[in-house]
């Protein structure tokens, strides 16, 4: 009985995992280190400590690369897409899971096959479709694309998670006179919190980091999204300003790191709340 009381003990497992974790992320420390150096220094010896720790590169990010506005745009896009996904996807997953075998399976397959289609195939027809709808090259078009593109995977994750939720609660609600939609929002959705948080973290990351699809659907015009901007500097085949690139990488990792840290706490809280049934 007392064995599980040692809650805060830092034992050998913790030590081992900490070392393993640190080794695991060590390449990232390389990026962090190089963000403080000048370009010739980086080219000369990537592993050395900087001669002088300077913030110049970071300053360039905001003045030279002008990443401030794109960062805001990216944040808004993430928020928008996530908001849509976590409303539309769980509803669909719920409806699929609670159906009769045949139609449920059919819908699951319908959504799943979307995961196998590469973006290049839909690229041109999609752009023409946006043209027909007169929303080409707008944020709305990109948002619709991101949401639709993310639905299959999202629904898949939600369905899998939903399989672990017992039906008794829903049946009780049905007896109470709750409609299916109401049942979903009031009872099932809160129980899906760990899954929702997972989705927020993953899709936040994915959209934040995406450049290829954003570049194609929206084009390299003003007010662009963050990684599209950085990508222009990153992929240059003749000259690379490594110092700016690494500084950009570090700066751009900050928001997602913050998101992850914040979500982690809620993650644990949400899970432990769910475990107490």
């Amino acid at each position, binding site marked *: 009985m007392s064995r599980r009381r040692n809650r805060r003990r830092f034992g050998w497992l913790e030590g081992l995992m900490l070392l393993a974790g640190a080794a695991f992320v060590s390449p990232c420390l390389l990026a962090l280190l190089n963000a403080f150096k000048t370009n010739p220094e980086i080219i000369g010896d990537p592993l050395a400590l900087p001669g002088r720790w300077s913030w110049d590169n970071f300053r360039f990010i905001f003045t030279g690369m002008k990443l401030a506005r794109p960062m805001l745009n990216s944040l808004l896009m993430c928020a928008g897409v996530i908001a849509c996904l976590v409303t539309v996807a769980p509803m669909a997953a719920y409806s699929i899971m609670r159906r009769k075998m045949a139609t449920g399976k059919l819908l699951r397959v319908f959504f799943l096959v979307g995961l196998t289609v590469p973006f290049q195939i839909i690229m041109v027809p999609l752009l023409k479709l946006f043209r027909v709808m007169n929303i080409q090259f707008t944020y709305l078009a990109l948002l619709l694309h991101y949401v639709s593109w993310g639905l299959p995977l999202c629904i898949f994750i939600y369905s899998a998670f939903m399989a672990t939720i017992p039906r008794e609660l829903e049946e009780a609600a049905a007896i109470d006179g709750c409609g*299916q939609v109401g049942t979903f929002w009031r009872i099932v959705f809160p129980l899906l919190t760990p899954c929702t948080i997972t989705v927020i973290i993953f899709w936040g990351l994915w959209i934040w980091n995406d450049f290829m699809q954003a570049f194609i659907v929206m084009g390299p015009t003003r007010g662009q999204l963050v990684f599209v901007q950085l990508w222009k500097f990153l992929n240059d085949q003749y000259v690379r300003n490594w110092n700016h690139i690494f500084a950009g990488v570090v700066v751009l990792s900050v928001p997602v790191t913050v998101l992850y840290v914040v979500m982690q706490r809620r993650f644990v809280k949400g899970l432990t709340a769910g475990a107490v049934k």
Partner: protein
Amino acid sequence: MSGAATRRGRGWAASLILCGPAVLLYGTFVVLPAVLGFAYSLTDWTGWTTEPNFVGLDNFRELAGDERFASAVRFTLFETWMIVLFFTFGSLVLAVLLDRLRSAKGLIRGLFFYPYILSILVVALLFKYLCNYNHGAVNLLLRSMGLGHWAQDWMMDPRLVGYFIFAMVAWSAVGFFTTLYLANLQTIPAELYEAASLDGAGPVSVFTRIQLPLLVPTVTTNLVLATIFGINLFGQIVVTTEGGPGYRTATVGYYIYWLGVKNNRQGYASAVSFTVFAALVAVAIVQVALLRRRQVQL
């Protein structure tokens, strides 16, 4: 009687509200363009002109004898196999270990998750840096430890390049799969663990008797996701080896990109893509049929 009818009626309306938006969005912006995109496989479209020529099944005939496609399939399967194994079982072990931690949980979990935060461009840059033969950190480290004879061209040596890609993918995505397992692990009620500790069960037996059976849903999920992830490998190839050396690391996804974007054969690329898609659907249907038969037998 009327009560049941209204309940059924409400059932339809509810279905529409719940499922409708998803089906509408997905159908309009994914399925429709995909069908249209696949239609190009019957043409010789280059991607630049607006009216392609209809060529019937020529593209598919060419595909049947296409050696580079066969080679791409082989390489994709090779990578997918490793990826599936690692993300289904490797992540599982890692998740179980992370779950057993009793302090510094958030920090340590964060360390393993962190690479997932980085964009593939960054991951590729880092790995190219690390694995360069002359200036890369791995070889520099080996040489400084007197193990210079172990130094290899980790990235472009044809024997190692497949593993290089795998290592990069594994490093960057382990956070994703581990998190899914962790989410599932956290739903295991504490009473089960307490009961096990009362019985005097050791960690291994806790794993095999309690955790593993309850993790089966996520194992299945991760298996499917890892398979799809492996089959779709493409961006990672573009930013590192570009299919090289030669064309050895061209995956199916990369070959489609190469055909369409670089070789201006968008019609043929659509045909390749459709074939892969059809193959995957066929596999899925077979799986579903097998499962159903097994369920009926039960």
